[in-house]
């Protein structure tokens, strides 16, 4: 049971519930600030660059990328895994913390879920573009076709990935949307302009706030939470199996699924932290996303960082313990001390060492430092995927096959494009959606007070 006297209030400023509505919705009702337009211009430019890169890829083929026969996977899969990892935070926040009855999640889960949806959409661009002939992508769907019907290979992790990712987009978008229904209804009732009223009355599905509706709503949330909790674990395990089932030194290990899942939650939490720090700052939501929220996330990050460090150490130990020369080569001569050692050490520093600074209360309470560390973790997690993909592929079993890998401007362009897409999505979310789950915040406003027992 949450005790307010010990842990402090979840919402600061002794607000009544009417105030909560108007304060959370104020960013939507104010005039658009100038920075919003500047940010949108930048993100749309990035998106345009990405569109150009996507055009080059589709029109001229994968030859536009830096990948070659040896390193057949490059930035495409690196960014895919990076985005999917970031996408894990929303579900982790909403669901794991819901299951663990952590009430503080209520002010953050909405933005984390939004981030999830946009991040997975970004991720899904990569496999599609890497197909080369994107217009034939429907071959991967199991539909009754005129080719036999020749079914796809249901035993391939790459197909499992298709099923898992599309389910993940779908389930998390549903969860996100259902949670917004009551909040859309308030916006509908408060709307001043006619267009706004029409749009939000479509979006709110005619939410009426009656006890019956709430009860069904709560039950549905529990069902969705229960089933998508399993997805958090399964999606990234399946992504890990894309690698682990390949007989490639550095990939073919049983540690991969749990290691990937933990890494995903790590990068996701770091991205949530980045986002909520910006959000509370620019929208003045410090009463809702309090310092103690930031504190709680940083503590989780220390914990996950320690698991990551254990993962890195275990990988190295097992490669030595196995006595397999290819594994030992990959880890000792290629990653720790090879051409790509800078990437390896950026990864270890950012993921295993720097987050340890969060042990100090001074660091945890300095928002600027927390922000920088969160960005560094995002960077470190990107390099983790880079290390896994590039070091293993460029130098595999036969030295005659070795080939270096450098991304081209087209690959970089696609990455910048997805960053642009993500930021555009988040900006639109900031402006047109309730950034904090209003009804959930109201429910925990007075939690832990004597009168409620």
């Amino acid at each position, binding site marked *: 049971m949450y005790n307010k006297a010990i842990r402090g209030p979840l919402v600061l400023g002794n607000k009544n519930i009417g105030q909560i509505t108007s304060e959370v919705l104020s960013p939507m009702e104010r005039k658009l600030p100038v920075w919003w337009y500047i940010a949108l211009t930048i993100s749309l430019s990035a998106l345009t660059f990405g569109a150009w890169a996507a055009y080059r890829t589709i029109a001229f083929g994968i030859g536009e990328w830096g990948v070659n026969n040896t390193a057949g996977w490059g930035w495409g899969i690196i960014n895919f895994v990076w985005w999917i990892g970031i996408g894990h935070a929303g579900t982790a926040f909403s669901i794991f913390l819901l299951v663990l009855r952590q009430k503080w999640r209520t002010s953050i889960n909405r933005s984390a879920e939004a981030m999830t949806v946009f991040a997975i959409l970004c991720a899904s661009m990569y496999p599609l573009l890497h197909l080369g002939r994107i217009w034939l992508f429907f071959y991967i769907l199991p539909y009754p076709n005129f080719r036999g019907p020749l079914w796809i290979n249901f035993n391939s992790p790459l197909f499992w990935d298709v099923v898992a990712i599309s389910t993940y987009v779908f389930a998390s978008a*549903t969860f996100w949307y259902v949670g917004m229904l009551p909040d859309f209804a308030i916006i509908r009732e408060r709307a001043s302009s006619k267009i706004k009223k029409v749009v939000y009355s479509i979006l709110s599905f*005619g939410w009426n*706030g009656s006890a019956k509706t709430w009860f069904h*709503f709560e039950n549905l949330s529990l069902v969705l939470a229960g089933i998508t909790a399993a997805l958090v674990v399964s999606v990234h395990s399946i992504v890990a199996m894309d690698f682990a089932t390949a007989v490639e030194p550095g990939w073919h290990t049983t540690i991969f699924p749990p290691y990937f899942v933990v890494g995903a939650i790590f990068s996701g939490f770091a991205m949530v932290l980045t986002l909520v720090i910006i959000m509370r700052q620019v929208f003045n939501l410090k009463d809702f996303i309090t310092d103690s929220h930031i504190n709680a996330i940083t503590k989780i990050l220390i914990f996950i960082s320690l698991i990551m460090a254990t993962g890195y150490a275990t990988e190295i130990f097992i490669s030595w313990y196995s006595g397999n020369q290819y594994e030992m080569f990959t880890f000792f001569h290629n990653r720790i001390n090879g051409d790509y050692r800078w990437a390896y050490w950026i990864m270890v520093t950012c993921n295993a060492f720097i987050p340890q600074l969060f042990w100090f209360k001074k660091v945890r309470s300095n928002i600027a430092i927390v922000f920088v560390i969160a960005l560094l973790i995002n960077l470190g997690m990107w390099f983790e995927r880079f290390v896994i993909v590039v070091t293993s592929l460029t130098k595999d079993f036969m030295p005659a096959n070795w080939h270096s890998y450098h991304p081209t401007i087209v690959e970089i362009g696609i990455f910048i494009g997805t960053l642009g897409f993500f930021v555009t999505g988040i900006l639109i979310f900031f402006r047109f959606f309730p950034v904090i789950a209003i009804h959930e915040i109201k429910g925990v406003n007075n939690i832990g007070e004597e009168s409620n027992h």
Partner: protein
Amino acid sequence: MSQSIIVGIFDEENTLLTGIHKLQEEGFKVLDVISPYPVHGVFKALKTKSNIPLLGFLYGLSAFFLTWYFLYWANVISYPLTFGGKPHNATPSFIIIIFVMVINLTGFLSFITLLGKTKMYPGKKVKLADIRGLDDKFVVVVEKDKEMTYDKLDIVKNLMTESGASEVNEKTV
């Protein structure tokens, strides 16, 4: 169809619950409560029921067998393709797709069930007893049948005011 109702507006969760209990003790039927967030005491008092969890389980169960059967049918009956000498009926490698499809179909169908049960759809127009019930008030709706005498009406109003209602109105919706 229009219906006459008595609407009590409460400011707080605690007074709301006292109000509902008092009304029910006196034998008045509380039709509905509109609240800005789910209040668990209200669910108990109104005895609301939902079979979404049960239906969700059944959806999951059906999805489990349907997906399994589809994979079996596609791999063994429709087009038994041999690769690497592996068995056609490779149950272990079906598990993941079955697992994910259970989640997919359960989520989707439960969502549709919510819409069906609450009769919600995009763009539905609603007439609320009091719109403040979505924002910062708790609205108790009591049925006012045609035979209700003025005495009884007064009792309802008094009960509401005594337990802390800030406003009591009569309405037709």
